[in-house]
């Protein structure tokens, strides 16, 4: 099982802050994960309509969409950051 956590409008559109999912072995990269999630239902489609804008962190570190996700404990999906 892999823990997925969501923030800001990604969290609001998916409708939950986090979930545990069992990822099929075909989901190898961050890009694969975004496509797989997007097909899980209307709320995911709504949140991940433009996957290229979604930022991703694996175990608290920023990664790009080509990153392999094998071994990840926690994967976070969120919009571009607006702190400061």
């Amino acid at each position, binding site marked *: 099982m892999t823990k997925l956590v969501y923030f800001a409008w990604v969290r609001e559109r998916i409708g939950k802050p986090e979930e545990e999912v069992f990822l099929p072995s075909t989901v190898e990269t961050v890009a694969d994960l975004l496509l797989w999630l997007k097909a899980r239902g209307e709320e995911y489609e709504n949140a991940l309509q433009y996957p290229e804008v979604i930022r991703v*962190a694996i175990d608290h*570190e*920023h990664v790009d969409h080509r990153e392999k996700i094998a071994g990840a404990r926690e994967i976070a999906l*969120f919009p571009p*950051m*607006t*702190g*400061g």
Partner: protein
Amino acid sequence: MPAGVVPMVRIQRQDFDIAAEIGRLTEGRTDVGAVVTFSGLCRDEAGALAALELEHYPGMAEAEIARIAEEALGRWPLMGLSAIHRFGKIAPGENIVLVVAASAHRQVAFEAASFLMDYLKSRAPFWKKEHRVDGSEGNWVDAKDADDQAAARWNSSR
């Protein structure tokens, strides 16, 4: 990096005291010649904004700002470096973020504080949601290209 400089990073709901944070870097020593502070405040956007709701990613927010601070310590001869970022509901006029950089000379302190803020804005996992005065559903603040460009300039200039 100067030996023994450990950046202080805090993520907190409550306000901070700028004078106390400067004192933390300067008290008991006589070698600091320059302290630069930057504080970011919540604007009211011409009276339309009632508050900003700051959401953050606990754990990663601290880790990411600490990574940026370590990067700054590697680039400039700093004597102290602090960053505080608030979360939760913040009203116009209130503080959001503080950076304090201490060094022997001003240029180093100015540059390090600027670098830390530029990177913090584009890499620290915080998101702002608007609460409008008229009670309508506020928007999530959009990220600005200018902030990414501000961070990118540190790659080309050094």
